[in-house]
């Protein structure tokens, strides 16, 4: 909370002194007396008290589960829970950083008596992802306008515009428990794998009786073993990932987060273990797990961790982030990579969401794969071909995708503007085994 003096009345002393001075010099008592009016106004700002701001805020949406591009009416209700009247209250609502106001204004001004409420509404264009509202900024002035209190009022509001993905392409790196990832190992399952010579102890139900009847040989049928996978969704939120195709569009980190959210839901519905990790401002980690509580923990981490913020780094942050030697602990991809490698179990696989704008992240993906962690890359494409630099960046991205594919890392090339992630993932599913 900041309290400041606006100094709006500063000139009034000059007026009072001027009138008084002229009155004295010209020896006109009436003019001198007029100076008293000025003096009264000069004293007035000192008689009012600093406003005490205690507010409750509440937001409602016209549509709780909008589709991408829908207009959503946001109704904001502000109540004065303090004991004094707020004579000059200005509110600027904290529209989520990745949403655009399409109609109306998130700014509102009111006079609010104790206990009273005021309401205003505006329209935002929904974009894919979970959008958390930021605290509303409140500026309250006293009746004379001399003292100004600037503060924020917060309430947790989230506008969720989530798509669904039917399935996440998983690679063959599994835990021991049975699940739904079909492996190349023989055992019990549904899909036929091979037949082999009978070994003592094989279950009777798996013996190929028809063959036995025909030839007298005892053979055992093996099915593809179905196991659970342990998947870590890794979001690239490094400084280089905060890139957007155009100024008014969501950046790649926002797209990656929306994608991670969808895959998280899809994976939680299966028996697979799913974890969450992020590199960027700091290393964020949630070990793979299952169950509704785990899902809640994942959502909370996505919503609150500074790593998963969609707000691009400020100039100063960016400078420390692109520190050429990586001397800065935060933002340092290498140390975060080491941390990730340490925490990943031997059986976990990684789905990396990255726009592939940085060579460091490419190195990380290759390093993970080389160390035995299976990696799948899902890459939102935010390059544009309008400038030379843009075309160069697109070429670099293509080169990186090729490098990944050469290392047998499947890459899902996803254009978030035109394609649904689910479609792209299904298309990739055929290639991933």
């Amino acid at each position: 909370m900041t309290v400041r003096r606006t100094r709006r009345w500063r000139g009034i002393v000059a007026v009072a002194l001027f009138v008084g001075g002229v009155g004295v010099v010209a020896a006109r008592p009436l003019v001198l007396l007029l100076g008293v009016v000025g003096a009264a106004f000069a004293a007035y700002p000192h008689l009012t008290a600093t406003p005490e701001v205690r507010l409750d805020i509440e937001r409602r949406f016209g549509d709780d589960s909008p589709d991408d591009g829908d207009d959503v009416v946001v109704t904001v209700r502000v109540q004065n829970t303090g004991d004094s009247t707020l004579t000059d209250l200005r509110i600027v609502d904290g529209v989520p950083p990745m949403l655009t106001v399409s109609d109306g204004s998130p700014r509102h001004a009111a006079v609010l008596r104790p206990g009273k409420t005021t309401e205003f509404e505006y329209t935002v264009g929904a974009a894919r992802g979970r959008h958390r509202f930021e605290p509303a900024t409140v500026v309250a002035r006293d009746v004379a306008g001399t003292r100004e209190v600037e503060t924020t009022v917060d309430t947790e509001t989230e506008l969720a515009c989530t798509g669904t993905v039917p399935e996440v392409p998983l690679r063959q790196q599994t835990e021991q428990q049975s699940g739904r990832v079909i492996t190349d190992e023989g055992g019990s399952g549904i899909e036929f794998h091979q037949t082999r010579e009978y070994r003592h102890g094989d279950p009777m139900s798996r013996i190929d009786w028809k063959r036995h009847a025909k030839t007298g040989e005892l053979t055992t049928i093996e099915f593809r073993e179905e196991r659970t996978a342990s998947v870590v969704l890794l979001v690239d939120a490094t400084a280089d990932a905060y890139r957007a195709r155009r100024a008014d569009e969501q950046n790649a980190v926002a797209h990656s987060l929306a994608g991670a959210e969808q895959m998280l839901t899809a994976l939680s519905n299966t028996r697979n273990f799913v974890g969450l990790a992020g590199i960027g401002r700091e290393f964020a980690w949630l070990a793979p797990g299952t169950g509704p509580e785990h899902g809640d923990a994942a959502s909370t981490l996505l919503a609150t961790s500074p790593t998963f913020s969609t707000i691009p780094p400020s100039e100063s942050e960016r400078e420390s982030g692109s520190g050429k030697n990586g001397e800065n602990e935060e933002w340092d991809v290498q140390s975060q990579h080491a941390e990730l490698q340490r925490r990943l179990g031997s059986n976990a696989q990684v789905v990396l969401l990255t726009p592939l704008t940085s060579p460091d992240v490419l190195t990380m993906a290759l390093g993970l794969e080389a160390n035995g962690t299976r990696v799948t890359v899902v890459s939102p494409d935010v390059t544009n071909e309008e400038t030379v630099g843009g075309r160069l960046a697109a070429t670099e991205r293509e080169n990186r995708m090729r490098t990944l594919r050469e290392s047998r890392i499947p890459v899902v090339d996803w254009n978030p503007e035109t394609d649904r992630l689910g479609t792209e993932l299904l298309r990739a599913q055929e290639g991933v085994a």
Partner: protein
Amino acid sequence: MRARTPVVVLGVAVFALALGVLLTPGLGGAIPVADAVDAAGSDYKLFVVFGAVALLLVLVVVGLRAVGGQAQATPPDPEHVRTAPAPGAEFDSVVGGGVGLREQLFGDERERVRGRLRETATQTVMRRENCGRETARERVENGTWTDDRDAAAFVGGERGPSPPVSSRVTAALRGRSWFQHGARRAAEEIVGTSDRRVTDGGRRTEDDR
């Protein structure tokens, strides 16, 4: 506020004194007004001093107002998406605006841009020719990867071609440095090389990218 307190105290004291003089005439007699008037010459001359001081203070206050201005909150602008630069925007700014003088003399920005272009050229040649890294590197170093002499000279090594004088002159005439001109040509050529491969392969289309 604290700086004002003595002034306020003084003001209250003077006001109290004035009230006192009005209510108890005896107190008025105690103030040597007559002597002061005699010393000044006339009562007008005595009062005009107060008036002049007031007018001087006007100048001070007006000056303070002009310097200090008003202080007020600057509310945020939440209406639009928090903007992020487009991929490749840094390259555009280096090529378009060049690097600052200080960076030119002491920085390694130019070398970084050149290194990045060299690496991308190598990768692209690898992709186009389906060759190994060494071969591609070799071709970029000696400038045989492209027909464009400017681009070849910009990313080429010591054994590569030197930039034609005519290009340097053309660049200078357009108000660009050789660095800016060369970087732009190299980037365009790399992108062109990449696209050519795309058409040759015929597998990937514009939509895929």
